[in-house]
């Protein structure tokens, strides 16, 4: 019988599936769910006898996960040595443009966020960028972002080995079609209807005739998640680990 799971665990499982085959996954700041997904990926790969991906967590203290600093991390991505990364956005639009700067006319905007951080670079050089946002609403998923921190696609001739592959929200999983510059609904999370996704999404997207439901995390995934992964994610994200898994850091 399938165990019950938390909403976070479902999202972790969705992201984890998108990371299959990665050799080096980097996780940015304030990303406990993507971070857990990367660690789950590693735990799964380790189990089947392979060598799990290297996971670098920006801001982690433990030698196993920490980076050599920002310059090295960006250089590493520039060398093509980072396969997967996660980005978010205060606004994300239907062409996968992301906005981390603010709403309204720049620079004196009516809403101002932190800034573009590494997005305008990493979105270009990391082959598998997964967009992740814990709010699915028309406020966030807009027809056109007010400020392009990083564009979802680039014209021919622009050096761009990287870019978005998917967008994960609490309602669904979209995949990004690079050629068509559009999202397609790949699965809706259990209990979510296509209509609800359409209602709460500000941009137009493709949807197959019969949108499958997101597969919930298997029992063995949940066991790994609540064991090894929970202990590991408690290094960079102790509060998250305690809240979701009731876990203390591995080293504590």
């Amino acid at each position, binding site marked *: 019988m399938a165990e019950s799971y938390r909403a976070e665990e479902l999202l972790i499982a969705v992201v984890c599936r998108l990371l299959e085959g990665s050799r080096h996954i980097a996780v940015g700041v304030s990303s406990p769910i993507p971070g857990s997904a990367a660690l789950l990926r590693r735990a799964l790969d380790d189990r089947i006898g392979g060598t799990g991906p290297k996971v670098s967590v920006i801001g982690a203290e433990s030698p196993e996960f920490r980076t050599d600093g920002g310059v090295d991390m960006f250089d590493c991505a520039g060398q093509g040595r980072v396969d997967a990364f996660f980005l978010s956005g205060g606004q994300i639009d239907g062409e996968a443009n992301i906005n981390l700067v603010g709403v309204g006319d720049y620079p004196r905007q009516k809403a101002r966020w*932190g*800034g573009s951080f590494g997005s305008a*670079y990493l979105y*270009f050089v990391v082959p598998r960028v997964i967009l992740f946002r814990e709010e699915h609403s028309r406020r966030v998923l807009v027809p056109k972002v007010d400020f392009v921190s990083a564009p979802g696609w680039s014209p021919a001739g622009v050096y761009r080995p990287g870019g978005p592959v998917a967008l994960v929200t609490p309602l669904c999983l979209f995949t990004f079609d690079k050629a068509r510059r559009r999202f397609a609904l790949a699965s809706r999370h259990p209990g979510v209807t296509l209509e609800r996704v359409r209602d709460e999404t500000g941009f137009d997207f493709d949807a197959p005739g019969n949108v499958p439901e997101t597969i919930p995390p298997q029992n063995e995934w949940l066991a790994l998640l609540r064991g090894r992964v929970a202990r590991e994610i408690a290094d960079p994200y102790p509060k998250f680990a305690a809240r979701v898994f009731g876990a203390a850091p591995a080293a504590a």
Partner: protein
Amino acid sequence: MTLQLASVDALVADLADGAVVAAMKDTSGAPMALARALIGKGVRGLHLVNMPTGGLFADVLIGAGCVATVEGGGVSLGEYGQAPCFVRAVKSGAVRPLDTTCPAVYAALQAGEKGIPFMPLRGLIGSDILTHRADYKIVDNPIAPPGTHDPADRAMRDPIVLIPAIRPDLALIHAPLADRDGNLWVGRDHELRILAHAARHTVATVEQIAAGNLNADPLRSAGVISALYVDAVALAPRGALPCGMAGLYEADGAAIAAYVQAAATPEGFRAWLDAFLAGDTPARRAAE
């Protein structure tokens, strides 16, 4: 060439209004003791370069009215939320944001370190960062592999952005350790070395003064900023608080949360600042 230890205030005594100052992200040793000195001195109109992002240090300086331009990848208090003074100052126009992406800040300072006028950087093309950065130039990559660079074919021209060098007038550092020859130990935080090299002058507060020369120790010397780049050093134990120092002390989360709450209004920030300037440090409060 033995360095005299200075007072923290003396480190910034000569800093002129309008200077370009640079500091690293809070987790690399937030120079909070230097923030107190800068605000106490009443410096104005600074061009603050956050390497590559700003946090509490930047927000406090902005709130205190020291900053005219804030350059970097972003300003945020991370898990504590948005930086309230930064957000307010940008919205009101009190501060001009020079938004960019983190690796562009590093590229600019590395160009400064090398004495080259610019450094190329991938990415950025098609972003609104570029729309608002007239100082960034797009050129056709002259080194494009043969066959990819046909000037007649716009789609094949391989555009690339050039980031102009930054050479800050003053780099502000809080480091774990200095020796009396003026060498700083920054351990694996190699970016602090880039910062000191790029800046025309560097001052540092430190947690501790080492006995002997740091470069004489083969283990320490791998993490040293040479005295050649360091103008003056002052002792400031726990000088990063309420931010943390990796391996020495944790950030004071309660104090940062209290800051976020206080700084939600200009009046609240002013009251926080008065206490900060009066030396009402978390360490002192904890002792009460």
